[in-house]
Protein backbone atom coordinates (compact mmCIF):
# COMPACT_ATOMS: atom_id res chain seq x y z
CA UNK A 1 0.00 0.00 0.00
CA UNK A 2 1.38 3.40 -1.00
CA UNK A 3 0.18 6.52 0.77
CA UNK A 4 1.07 10.14 -0.06
CA UNK A 5 0.57 12.88 2.53
CA UNK A 6 0.41 16.59 1.66
CA UNK A 7 2.11 18.72 4.31
CA UNK A 8 1.65 22.49 3.91
CA UNK A 9 3.46 25.28 5.68
CA UNK A 10 1.00 27.95 6.82
CA UNK A 11 1.25 31.18 8.84
CA UNK A 12 1.12 30.50 12.58
CA UNK A 13 -2.04 32.31 13.65
CA UNK A 14 -0.88 32.45 17.25
CA UNK A 15 1.73 35.01 16.12
CA UNK A 16 0.90 38.58 15.10
CA UNK A 17 -0.28 38.73 11.48
CA UNK A 18 0.98 41.81 9.65
CA UNK A 19 -0.90 42.95 6.55
CA UNK A 20 1.39 43.94 3.64
CA UNK A 21 1.38 47.39 2.03
CA UNK A 22 -0.79 46.14 -0.84
CA UNK A 23 -3.59 45.69 1.73
CA UNK A 24 -4.54 42.28 0.42
CA UNK A 25 -1.85 39.87 1.54
CA UNK A 26 0.33 39.16 4.56
CA UNK A 27 3.73 40.76 4.92
CA UNK A 28 5.99 37.87 3.96
CA UNK A 29 8.90 38.99 6.17
CA UNK A 30 6.73 38.96 9.28
CA UNK A 31 5.17 35.52 8.86
CA UNK A 32 6.12 32.69 11.22
CA UNK A 33 5.35 29.28 9.78
CA UNK A 34 4.02 26.06 11.19
CA UNK A 35 2.89 22.84 9.57
CA UNK A 36 -0.84 23.01 8.86
CA UNK A 37 -2.33 21.32 11.90
CA UNK A 38 -4.72 19.04 10.01
CA UNK A 39 -1.91 17.95 7.67
CA UNK A 40 -0.08 16.79 10.78
CA UNK A 41 -3.13 14.67 11.55
CA UNK A 42 -3.07 13.37 7.96
CA UNK A 43 0.55 12.28 8.43
CA UNK A 44 -0.34 10.58 11.71
CA UNK A 45 -3.19 8.70 10.02
CA UNK A 46 -0.80 7.54 7.29
CA UNK A 47 1.68 6.35 9.93
CA UNK A 48 -1.13 4.50 11.73
CA UNK A 49 -1.82 2.69 8.42
CA UNK A 50 1.88 1.93 8.17
CA UNK A 51 1.85 0.50 11.71
CA UNK A 52 -1.14 -1.70 10.91
CA UNK A 53 -0.34 -2.84 7.39
CA UNK A 54 3.19 -1.71 6.53
CA UNK A 55 2.15 1.10 4.19
CA UNK A 56 4.86 3.00 2.32
CA UNK A 57 4.43 6.67 3.33
CA UNK A 58 5.63 9.50 1.07
CA UNK A 59 5.52 13.01 2.58
CA UNK A 60 5.09 15.91 0.16
CA UNK A 61 6.28 19.12 1.83
CA UNK A 62 4.75 22.27 0.31
CA UNK A 63 5.97 25.84 0.88
CA UNK A 64 9.28 27.60 1.44
CA UNK A 65 12.44 26.22 3.03
CA UNK A 66 10.52 25.52 6.27
CA UNK A 67 8.90 22.64 4.40
CA UNK A 68 12.27 20.85 4.46
CA UNK A 69 12.22 20.92 8.28
CA UNK A 70 8.71 19.51 8.24
CA UNK A 71 9.94 16.74 5.93
CA UNK A 72 12.77 15.90 8.35
CA UNK A 73 10.19 15.65 11.13
CA UNK A 74 7.99 13.43 8.93
CA UNK A 75 10.91 11.07 8.23
CA UNK A 76 11.88 11.03 11.92
CA UNK A 77 8.29 10.02 12.68
CA UNK A 78 8.40 7.17 10.17
CA UNK A 79 7.78 8.37 6.59
CA UNK A 80 9.88 6.51 3.97
CA UNK A 81 10.06 9.20 1.35
CA UNK A 82 10.45 12.99 1.47
CA UNK A 83 9.47 15.13 -1.51
CA UNK A 84 9.85 18.91 -1.47
CA UNK A 85 7.49 20.97 -3.63
CA UNK A 86 8.61 24.60 -3.46
CA UNK A 87 5.74 27.06 -3.64
CA UNK A 88 6.28 30.80 -3.72
CA UNK A 89 4.64 32.91 -1.05
CA UNK A 90 2.29 34.59 -3.52
CA UNK A 91 0.95 31.21 -4.67
CA UNK A 92 0.11 29.85 -1.21
CA UNK A 93 -3.44 29.59 0.11
CA UNK A 94 -4.77 29.22 -3.44
CA UNK A 95 -5.94 25.62 -3.49
CA UNK A 96 -7.08 25.73 -7.13
CA UNK A 97 -3.53 26.45 -8.17
CA UNK A 98 -1.97 23.99 -5.71
CA UNK A 99 -4.40 21.20 -6.65
CA UNK A 100 -3.62 21.51 -10.34
CA UNK A 101 0.10 21.59 -9.59
CA UNK A 102 0.00 18.58 -7.27
CA UNK A 103 -2.20 16.60 -9.67
CA UNK A 104 0.54 16.71 -12.28
CA UNK A 105 3.14 15.63 -9.70
CA UNK A 106 1.11 12.83 -8.10
CA UNK A 107 -0.68 11.40 -11.14
CA UNK A 108 1.89 8.72 -11.92
CA UNK A 109 2.98 8.05 -8.34
CA UNK A 110 0.97 4.83 -8.03
CA UNK A 111 -0.56 5.89 -4.71
CA UNK A 112 -3.50 3.99 -3.23
CA UNK A 113 -4.38 6.89 -0.98
CA UNK A 114 -3.53 10.59 -0.94
CA UNK A 115 -4.18 12.20 2.45
CA UNK A 116 -4.37 15.90 3.28
CA UNK A 117 -5.83 17.97 6.09
CA UNK A 118 -9.41 18.85 5.17
CA UNK A 119 -8.63 22.54 5.51
CA UNK A 120 -5.79 25.00 6.12
CA UNK A 121 -5.66 28.34 7.96
CA UNK A 122 -4.63 30.24 4.83
CA UNK A 123 -7.09 28.84 2.27
CA UNK A 124 -9.87 30.98 0.90
CA UNK A 125 -11.12 28.75 -1.93
CA UNK A 126 -12.42 25.31 -0.93
CA UNK A 127 -10.65 22.18 0.30
CA UNK A 128 -7.48 21.04 -1.44
CA UNK A 129 -8.55 17.39 -1.38
CA UNK A 130 -11.77 17.81 -3.37
CA UNK A 131 -10.02 19.86 -6.04
CA UNK A 132 -7.07 17.48 -6.26
CA UNK A 133 -9.35 14.43 -6.51
CA UNK A 134 -11.31 16.03 -9.37
CA UNK A 135 -8.13 16.71 -11.33
CA UNK A 136 -7.00 13.11 -10.76
CA UNK A 137 -10.49 11.66 -11.44
CA UNK A 138 -10.42 10.00 -8.04
CA UNK A 139 -13.18 9.93 -5.39
CA UNK A 140 -12.89 12.32 -2.44
CA UNK A 141 -14.39 12.38 1.00
CA UNK A 142 -13.31 14.74 3.79
CA UNK A 143 -13.99 15.43 7.45
CA UNK A 144 -12.52 12.07 8.35
CA UNK A 145 -11.63 10.90 11.84
CA UNK A 146 -10.58 7.35 10.89
CA UNK A 147 -9.23 5.44 7.89
CA UNK A 148 -8.48 1.77 7.42
CA UNK A 149 -7.65 -0.32 4.39
CA UNK A 150 -6.71 -3.96 3.86
CA UNK A 151 -2.97 -4.45 3.23
CA UNK A 152 -3.53 -5.31 -0.42
CA UNK A 153 -5.38 -2.05 -1.12
CA UNK A 154 -8.78 -2.01 -2.85
CA UNK A 155 -11.32 -0.38 -0.57
CA UNK A 156 -10.69 1.96 2.32
CA UNK A 157 -13.24 2.14 5.13
CA UNK A 158 -13.48 5.69 6.42
CA UNK A 159 -15.24 7.41 9.31
CA UNK A 160 -16.65 10.83 8.49
CA UNK A 161 -17.70 13.25 11.19
CA UNK A 162 -21.00 15.14 11.16
CA UNK A 163 -22.31 17.85 13.51
CA UNK A 164 -23.19 16.63 16.98
CA UNK A 165 -20.52 13.94 16.88
CA UNK A 166 -22.39 11.55 14.54
CA UNK A 167 -20.13 9.38 12.39
CA UNK A 168 -20.85 8.22 8.85
CA UNK A 169 -19.07 5.03 7.82
CA UNK A 170 -18.28 4.72 4.10
CA UNK A 171 -16.30 2.47 1.77
CA UNK A 172 -14.09 4.26 -0.75
CA UNK A 173 -12.53 2.45 -3.70
CA UNK A 174 -8.85 3.30 -4.13
CA UNK A 175 -7.07 5.17 -5.53
CA UNK A 176 -8.72 7.97 -3.57
CA UNK A 177 -8.03 11.34 -1.98
CA UNK A 178 -9.08 11.65 1.67
CA UNK A 179 -9.46 14.85 3.73
CA UNK A 180 -8.48 14.30 7.35
CA UNK A 181 -10.14 16.17 10.21
CA UNK A 182 -8.30 14.33 12.96
CA UNK A 183 -6.24 11.16 13.18
CA UNK A 184 -7.39 8.19 15.24
CA UNK A 185 -4.67 9.00 17.80
CA UNK A 186 -3.07 12.37 18.61
CA UNK A 187 -0.09 13.12 16.30
CA UNK A 188 2.96 11.41 17.73
CA UNK A 189 5.77 13.31 19.41
CA UNK A 190 9.25 12.95 18.10
CA UNK A 191 12.29 14.18 20.09
CA UNK A 192 14.30 17.03 18.57
CA UNK A 193 17.43 14.85 18.64
CA UNK A 194 15.73 12.36 16.33
CA UNK A 195 14.69 15.15 13.94
CA UNK A 196 18.26 16.49 13.90
CA UNK A 197 19.52 13.00 13.15
CA UNK A 198 17.00 12.62 10.32
CA UNK A 199 18.08 15.98 8.91
CA UNK A 200 21.68 14.79 8.58
CA UNK A 201 20.81 11.81 6.44
CA UNK A 202 17.66 13.20 4.83
CA UNK A 203 17.33 12.52 1.12
CA UNK A 204 14.88 15.03 -0.26
CA UNK A 205 13.62 14.82 -3.78
CA UNK A 206 12.85 18.33 -5.01
CA UNK A 207 10.12 18.78 -7.62
CA UNK A 208 10.66 22.22 -9.04
CA UNK A 209 8.26 22.61 -11.94
CA UNK A 210 6.31 25.74 -12.87
CA UNK A 211 3.10 26.34 -10.95
CA UNK A 212 0.01 26.75 -13.17
CA UNK A 213 -1.23 30.29 -13.66
CA UNK A 214 -4.86 29.62 -12.67
CA UNK A 215 -6.20 31.41 -9.64
CA UNK A 216 -9.01 30.42 -7.29
CA UNK A 217 -10.11 33.68 -5.73
CA UNK A 218 -8.81 37.24 -6.05
CA UNK A 219 -8.61 38.82 -2.62
CA UNK A 220 -9.12 42.57 -2.88
CA UNK A 221 -8.67 43.44 0.77
CA UNK A 222 -7.37 41.83 3.93
CA UNK A 223 -8.23 43.42 7.25
CA UNK A 224 -8.60 42.87 10.96
CA UNK A 225 -12.24 42.25 11.91
CA UNK A 226 -14.03 45.51 12.64
CA UNK A 227 -13.76 46.32 16.30
CA UNK A 228 -17.21 46.89 17.66
CA UNK A 229 -18.16 44.45 20.28
CA UNK A 230 -14.65 43.82 21.65
CA UNK A 231 -14.46 42.49 25.19
CA UNK A 232 -13.95 44.92 28.04
CA UNK A 233 -10.43 44.08 29.22
CA UNK A 234 -9.81 43.54 32.93
CA UNK A 235 -6.47 45.07 33.87
CA UNK A 236 -4.11 44.34 36.77
CA UNK A 237 -2.35 41.36 38.31
CA UNK A 238 -3.85 37.91 38.95
CA UNK A 239 -5.37 38.90 42.28
CA UNK A 240 -7.03 41.99 40.84
CA UNK A 241 -8.39 40.26 37.72
CA UNK A 242 -9.57 37.26 39.79
CA UNK A 243 -11.42 39.65 42.11
CA UNK A 244 -12.90 41.40 39.05
CA UNK A 245 -14.17 38.13 37.55
CA UNK A 246 -15.50 36.88 40.89
CA UNK A 247 -17.28 40.22 41.31
CA UNK A 248 -18.96 39.83 37.90
CA UNK A 249 -20.12 36.33 38.82
CA UNK A 250 -21.51 37.48 42.16
CA UNK A 251 -23.30 40.39 40.47
CA UNK A 252 -25.05 37.97 38.10
CA UNK A 253 -26.02 35.49 40.78
CA UNK A 254 -23.54 32.89 39.57
CA UNK A 255 -21.86 32.61 42.97
Amino acid at each position, binding site marked *: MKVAVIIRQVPDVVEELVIAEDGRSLSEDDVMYITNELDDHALEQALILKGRHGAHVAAYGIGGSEARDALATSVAKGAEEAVYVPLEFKDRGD*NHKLAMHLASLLRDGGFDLILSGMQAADQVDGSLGGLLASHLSMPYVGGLVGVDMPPGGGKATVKKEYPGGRIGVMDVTSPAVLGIQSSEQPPRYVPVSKVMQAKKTLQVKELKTPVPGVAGVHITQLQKPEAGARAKMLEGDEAKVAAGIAGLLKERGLL
Partner: protein
Amino acid sequence: MSPGGIVVVAEHLRGELADITLEMLACGRELADASGSGLICVVLTSDPGPFKALPFASNKTIIVKDPILGAFNPEAYTKVLSHLLKDLSPRLVLMGSTSIGMDLAGSLSVALGATTVGNCTRIELEGGKVLVTSKLYGGKLTARSEVEQGMVLCVLMSGSYPKEGGTKNVVPEVEIRDSPVPLTGLRIQFRELVEPDAADVDLTKVPVLVGAGRGVQGADNVKALTELAELLGGAVCATRPVVDQGWLPRTRQVGRSGAIVKPRLYLALGISGAPEHVEGMKDSELIIAVNTDPDAPIFDVAQYGTTLDVQDLIPALTEKVKELKGGA
Protein backbone atom coordinates in the same frame (compact mmCIF):
# COMPACT_ATOMS: atom_id res chain seq x y z
CA MET B 1 -34.86 29.40 -13.67
CA SER B 2 -33.43 32.27 -15.62
CA PRO B 3 -29.65 32.47 -15.53
CA GLY B 4 -28.46 34.74 -12.74
CA GLY B 5 -30.52 33.24 -9.93
CA ILE B 6 -29.49 31.83 -6.59
CA VAL B 7 -29.49 28.18 -5.48
CA VAL B 8 -29.21 26.86 -1.92
CA VAL B 9 -28.02 23.26 -1.46
CA ALA B 10 -29.94 21.96 1.57
CA GLU B 11 -28.27 19.87 4.25
CA HIS B 12 -30.00 17.26 6.35
CA LEU B 13 -29.25 14.11 8.30
CA ARG B 14 -31.80 11.38 8.99
CA GLY B 15 -34.64 13.55 7.65
CA GLU B 16 -33.79 16.45 9.97
CA LEU B 17 -32.99 19.72 8.24
CA ALA B 18 -29.74 21.34 9.46
CA ASP B 19 -29.98 24.97 10.68
CA ILE B 20 -27.35 25.99 8.15
CA THR B 21 -29.94 25.38 5.40
CA LEU B 22 -32.22 28.06 6.86
CA GLU B 23 -29.29 30.42 7.31
CA MET B 24 -28.33 29.94 3.64
CA LEU B 25 -31.95 30.55 2.63
CA ALA B 26 -31.95 33.76 4.70
CA CYS B 27 -28.82 34.90 2.87
CA GLY B 28 -30.23 33.85 -0.51
CA ARG B 29 -33.57 35.60 0.16
CA GLU B 30 -31.83 38.85 1.03
CA LEU B 31 -29.73 38.72 -2.15
CA ALA B 32 -32.63 37.62 -4.37
CA ASP B 33 -34.82 40.48 -3.11
CA ALA B 34 -32.06 43.03 -3.59
CA SER B 35 -31.24 41.85 -7.12
CA GLY B 36 -34.70 40.85 -8.32
CA SER B 37 -33.61 37.26 -9.02
CA GLY B 38 -35.13 33.89 -8.12
CA LEU B 39 -34.14 31.65 -5.20
CA ILE B 40 -34.28 27.86 -5.47
CA CYS B 41 -33.69 25.40 -2.63
CA VAL B 42 -32.36 22.02 -3.79
CA VAL B 43 -32.88 18.99 -1.53
CA LEU B 44 -31.29 15.61 -2.37
CA THR B 45 -32.98 12.72 -0.57
CA SER B 46 -34.47 9.24 -0.85
CA ASP B 47 -37.67 10.39 0.86
CA PRO B 48 -39.25 13.76 -0.07
CA GLY B 49 -41.76 13.38 2.82
CA PRO B 50 -40.11 15.50 5.52
CA PHE B 51 -39.19 18.31 3.08
CA LYS B 52 -42.09 18.86 0.71
CA ALA B 53 -44.27 20.90 3.07
CA LEU B 54 -41.58 23.08 4.62
CA PRO B 55 -42.20 26.84 4.34
CA PHE B 56 -38.80 27.70 2.89
CA ALA B 57 -38.11 31.32 1.92
CA SER B 58 -37.26 30.12 -1.58
CA ASN B 59 -39.42 30.78 -4.66
CA LYS B 60 -39.23 27.11 -5.46
CA THR B 61 -37.98 23.88 -3.91
CA ILE B 62 -36.56 21.15 -6.14
CA ILE B 63 -36.41 17.75 -4.46
CA VAL B 64 -34.25 15.18 -6.25
CA LYS B 65 -35.08 11.69 -5.04
CA ASP B 66 -33.13 8.47 -5.43
CA PRO B 67 -32.58 5.55 -3.02
CA ILE B 68 -28.81 6.29 -3.03
CA LEU B 69 -29.50 9.81 -1.73
CA GLY B 70 -30.88 8.45 1.57
CA ALA B 71 -27.59 9.34 3.20
CA PHE B 72 -24.92 11.86 2.25
CA ASN B 73 -22.52 10.46 -0.34
CA PRO B 74 -20.14 13.10 -1.74
CA GLU B 75 -19.77 11.31 -5.08
CA ALA B 76 -23.52 10.86 -5.64
CA TYR B 77 -24.21 14.45 -4.54
CA THR B 78 -21.54 15.80 -6.90
CA LYS B 79 -22.96 13.83 -9.84
CA VAL B 80 -26.52 15.06 -9.26
CA LEU B 81 -25.59 18.64 -8.44
CA SER B 82 -23.17 19.17 -11.30
CA HIS B 83 -25.91 18.05 -13.68
CA LEU B 84 -28.64 20.09 -12.04
CA LEU B 85 -26.58 23.25 -11.61
CA LYS B 86 -25.42 23.13 -15.21
CA ASP B 87 -29.06 23.05 -16.16
CA LEU B 88 -30.22 25.80 -13.76
CA SER B 89 -27.17 27.94 -14.51
CA PRO B 90 -27.42 30.15 -11.39
CA ARG B 91 -25.08 33.04 -10.67
CA LEU B 92 -24.64 32.04 -7.05
CA VAL B 93 -24.76 28.68 -5.26
CA LEU B 94 -24.77 28.57 -1.46
CA MET B 95 -23.38 25.58 0.44
CA GLY B 96 -22.67 25.18 4.15
CA SER B 97 -19.19 25.40 5.62
CA THR B 98 -19.79 21.97 7.10
CA SER B 99 -18.59 18.42 6.70
CA ILE B 100 -21.11 18.16 3.81
CA GLY B 101 -20.69 21.47 1.98
CA MET B 102 -16.91 21.40 2.21
CA ASP B 103 -16.87 17.97 0.53
CA LEU B 104 -18.80 19.31 -2.45
CA ALA B 105 -17.22 22.71 -3.07
CA GLY B 106 -14.00 21.46 -4.63
CA SER B 107 -15.44 18.82 -6.93
CA LEU B 108 -18.31 21.07 -8.10
CA SER B 109 -15.88 23.91 -8.69
CA VAL B 110 -13.90 21.77 -11.12
CA ALA B 111 -16.97 20.13 -12.71
CA LEU B 112 -18.72 23.46 -13.34
CA GLY B 113 -15.68 25.69 -13.86
CA ALA B 114 -17.06 27.83 -11.02
CA THR B 115 -15.20 30.08 -8.62
CA THR B 116 -15.33 28.86 -5.02
CA VAL B 117 -15.08 31.15 -2.01
CA GLY B 118 -14.79 29.51 1.41
CA ASN B 119 -15.50 30.63 5.02
CA CYS B 120 -18.04 33.22 3.81
CA THR B 121 -19.73 35.42 6.41
CA ARG B 122 -21.31 38.07 4.17
CA ILE B 123 -22.26 38.08 0.47
CA GLU B 124 -23.38 41.06 -1.63
CA LEU B 125 -24.34 41.49 -5.28
CA GLU B 126 -23.27 44.81 -6.70
CA GLY B 127 -23.45 45.85 -10.32
CA GLY B 128 -23.04 42.28 -11.60
CA LYS B 129 -20.20 41.49 -9.21
CA VAL B 130 -20.37 39.05 -6.32
CA LEU B 131 -18.64 40.59 -3.30
CA VAL B 132 -17.72 38.20 -0.52
CA THR B 133 -16.39 38.62 3.00
CA SER B 134 -14.61 35.55 4.43
CA LYS B 135 -12.81 34.65 7.61
CA LEU B 136 -9.17 33.75 7.21
CA TYR B 137 -6.33 32.63 9.50
CA GLY B 138 -8.53 31.11 12.20
CA GLY B 139 -10.84 34.14 12.14
CA LYS B 140 -8.02 36.58 12.95
CA LEU B 141 -8.37 38.40 9.62
CA THR B 142 -11.18 39.12 7.22
CA ALA B 143 -10.70 38.81 3.45
CA ARG B 144 -12.81 40.65 0.88
CA SER B 145 -12.96 39.18 -2.58
CA GLU B 146 -14.77 39.98 -5.82
CA VAL B 147 -15.94 37.73 -8.60
CA GLU B 148 -16.82 39.59 -11.77
CA GLN B 149 -18.41 36.85 -13.83
CA GLY B 150 -19.38 33.19 -14.01
CA MET B 151 -20.93 30.89 -11.45
CA VAL B 152 -19.82 31.41 -7.87
CA LEU B 153 -19.98 28.75 -5.15
CA CYS B 154 -20.01 30.34 -1.71
CA VAL B 155 -19.38 28.15 1.32
CA LEU B 156 -21.27 29.92 4.10
CA MET B 157 -20.22 29.79 7.74
CA SER B 158 -22.85 28.95 10.32
CA GLY B 159 -24.09 31.94 12.35
CA SER B 160 -23.59 34.45 9.53
CA TYR B 161 -27.31 34.98 8.79
CA PRO B 162 -30.33 34.56 11.11
CA LYS B 163 -32.10 31.26 10.47
CA GLU B 164 -35.49 32.94 11.02
CA GLY B 165 -35.00 34.60 7.62
CA GLY B 166 -34.95 31.18 5.96
CA THR B 167 -38.67 30.53 6.31
CA LYS B 168 -41.89 32.39 5.51
CA ASN B 169 -45.54 31.60 6.11
CA VAL B 170 -46.30 29.82 2.85
CA VAL B 171 -44.90 26.68 1.27
CA PRO B 172 -43.21 27.52 -2.03
CA GLU B 173 -43.78 25.61 -5.26
CA VAL B 174 -42.29 22.12 -4.88
CA GLU B 175 -41.04 19.99 -7.76
CA ILE B 176 -40.02 16.39 -7.13
CA ARG B 177 -37.65 14.91 -9.72
CA ASP B 178 -35.76 11.68 -10.19
CA SER B 179 -31.98 11.90 -10.35
CA PRO B 180 -30.95 13.43 -13.69
CA VAL B 181 -28.07 10.93 -13.91
CA PRO B 182 -27.89 7.21 -13.07
CA LEU B 183 -26.22 6.77 -9.69
CA THR B 184 -24.47 3.53 -10.56
CA GLY B 185 -20.81 2.55 -10.54
CA LEU B 186 -20.09 4.80 -7.55
CA ARG B 187 -16.70 4.46 -5.94
CA ILE B 188 -18.01 5.65 -2.57
CA GLN B 189 -20.59 3.56 -0.72
CA PHE B 190 -22.36 4.73 2.41
CA ARG B 191 -22.56 2.00 5.06
CA GLU B 192 -24.04 3.39 8.25
CA LEU B 193 -24.54 6.41 10.48
CA VAL B 194 -23.32 5.89 14.04
CA GLU B 195 -24.77 7.98 16.89
CA PRO B 196 -22.22 9.41 19.40
CA ASP B 197 -21.52 7.72 22.74
CA ALA B 198 -23.74 8.83 25.57
CA ALA B 199 -22.08 11.72 27.39
CA ASP B 200 -21.31 11.65 31.13
CA VAL B 201 -22.52 15.26 31.28
CA ASP B 202 -25.07 16.95 29.02
CA LEU B 203 -23.09 20.10 28.16
CA THR B 204 -26.21 21.81 26.79
CA LYS B 205 -27.87 21.70 30.22
CA VAL B 206 -25.03 22.87 32.47
CA PRO B 207 -25.32 26.51 33.70
CA VAL B 208 -21.57 27.14 33.84
CA LEU B 209 -18.95 25.85 31.42
CA VAL B 210 -15.20 26.21 31.85
CA GLY B 211 -13.81 25.83 28.33
CA ALA B 212 -10.25 24.58 27.86
CA GLY B 213 -8.27 25.62 24.77
CA ARG B 214 -4.77 24.81 23.67
CA GLY B 215 -3.45 27.62 25.92
CA VAL B 216 -4.17 25.34 28.87
CA GLN B 217 -1.03 23.52 27.71
CA GLY B 218 -1.53 19.97 28.92
CA ALA B 219 -3.78 17.31 30.40
CA ASP B 220 -2.31 17.90 33.88
CA ASN B 221 -3.62 21.44 33.91
CA VAL B 222 -7.17 20.31 33.18
CA LYS B 223 -7.48 19.11 36.80
CA ALA B 224 -7.35 22.69 38.13
CA LEU B 225 -10.06 23.70 35.65
CA THR B 226 -12.26 20.82 36.81
CA GLU B 227 -11.98 22.01 40.41
CA LEU B 228 -12.97 25.54 39.39
CA ALA B 229 -15.87 24.27 37.26
CA GLU B 230 -17.19 22.16 40.13
CA LEU B 231 -16.96 25.08 42.54
CA LEU B 232 -19.10 27.08 40.10
CA GLY B 233 -21.62 24.25 39.74
CA GLY B 234 -20.60 23.54 36.18
CA ALA B 235 -18.44 21.32 34.01
CA VAL B 236 -15.29 21.44 31.93
CA CYS B 237 -15.55 21.41 28.14
CA ALA B 238 -12.97 21.90 25.39
CA THR B 239 -12.06 22.94 21.87
CA ARG B 240 -11.37 20.39 19.17
CA PRO B 241 -7.52 20.51 19.39
CA VAL B 242 -7.69 19.78 23.15
CA VAL B 243 -9.92 16.76 22.53
CA ASP B 244 -7.72 15.63 19.61
CA GLN B 245 -4.74 15.70 21.97
CA GLY B 246 -6.64 13.40 24.32
CA TRP B 247 -6.67 15.88 27.25
CA LEU B 248 -10.47 15.53 27.53
CA PRO B 249 -12.93 12.99 26.06
CA ARG B 250 -14.76 13.64 22.77
CA THR B 251 -18.05 14.02 24.69
CA ARG B 252 -16.72 17.29 26.13
CA GLN B 253 -16.16 18.96 22.76
CA VAL B 254 -17.96 22.24 22.03
CA GLY B 255 -18.18 23.63 18.51
CA ARG B 256 -19.10 22.74 14.95
CA SER B 257 -18.70 19.00 15.40
CA GLY B 258 -19.44 18.89 19.13
CA ALA B 259 -22.10 20.39 21.35
CA ILE B 260 -23.79 23.76 20.72
CA VAL B 261 -24.07 25.34 24.16
CA LYS B 262 -25.73 28.43 25.68
CA PRO B 263 -24.77 28.40 29.38
CA ARG B 264 -25.22 31.35 31.76
CA LEU B 265 -21.43 31.61 31.97
CA TYR B 266 -18.76 30.42 29.53
CA LEU B 267 -15.25 30.90 30.86
CA ALA B 268 -12.98 30.54 27.80
CA LEU B 269 -9.48 29.63 28.98
CA GLY B 270 -6.59 29.64 26.50
CA ILE B 271 -9.09 29.50 23.61
CA SER B 272 -8.13 31.50 20.51
CA GLY B 273 -11.67 31.70 19.15
CA ALA B 274 -11.40 29.81 15.87
CA PRO B 275 -14.71 29.99 13.98
CA GLU B 276 -15.31 26.24 14.44
CA HIS B 277 -15.37 26.66 18.22
CA VAL B 278 -17.15 30.02 18.33
CA GLU B 279 -20.07 28.50 16.39
CA GLY B 280 -20.75 26.29 19.39
CA MET B 281 -20.62 28.82 22.25
CA LYS B 282 -21.21 32.35 20.95
CA ASP B 283 -24.77 32.50 22.29
CA SER B 284 -23.71 31.96 25.92
CA GLU B 285 -25.21 34.62 28.23
CA LEU B 286 -21.86 35.77 29.62
CA ILE B 287 -18.48 35.01 28.06
CA ILE B 288 -15.25 35.81 29.88
CA ALA B 289 -12.08 35.04 27.92
CA VAL B 290 -8.51 34.51 29.14
CA ASN B 291 -5.83 34.50 26.42
CA THR B 292 -2.31 35.95 26.31
CA ASP B 293 -2.79 37.06 22.67
CA PRO B 294 -4.58 40.44 22.71
CA ASP B 295 -5.58 39.93 19.03
CA ALA B 296 -7.24 36.54 19.65
CA PRO B 297 -10.67 36.46 17.96
CA ILE B 298 -12.25 35.12 21.17
CA PHE B 299 -12.23 38.71 22.46
CA ASP B 300 -14.66 39.60 19.66
CA VAL B 301 -17.36 37.38 21.16
CA ALA B 302 -16.51 37.76 24.87
CA GLN B 303 -17.97 40.55 27.00
CA TYR B 304 -14.97 40.53 29.34
CA GLY B 305 -11.38 39.47 28.85
CA THR B 306 -7.86 39.41 30.21
CA THR B 307 -4.47 38.72 28.65
CA LEU B 308 -3.09 37.11 31.81
CA ASP B 309 -1.74 33.56 31.53
CA VAL B 310 -4.35 30.89 32.35
CA GLN B 311 -1.89 29.06 34.62
CA ASP B 312 -1.32 32.21 36.68
CA LEU B 313 -4.95 33.27 36.88
CA ILE B 314 -6.72 30.01 37.73
CA PRO B 315 -5.26 29.47 41.24
CA ALA B 316 -6.06 33.09 42.14
CA LEU B 317 -9.57 32.85 40.72
CA THR B 318 -10.23 29.50 42.43
CA GLU B 319 -9.18 30.98 45.78
CA LYS B 320 -11.33 34.05 45.26
CA VAL B 321 -14.39 31.95 44.36
CA LYS B 322 -13.84 29.74 47.44
CA GLU B 323 -13.58 32.84 49.60
CA LEU B 324 -16.79 34.38 48.24
CA LYS B 325 -18.69 31.10 48.44
CA GLY B 326 -17.47 30.54 51.98
CA GLY B 327 -18.70 33.96 52.98
CA ALA B 328 -22.05 33.60 51.28
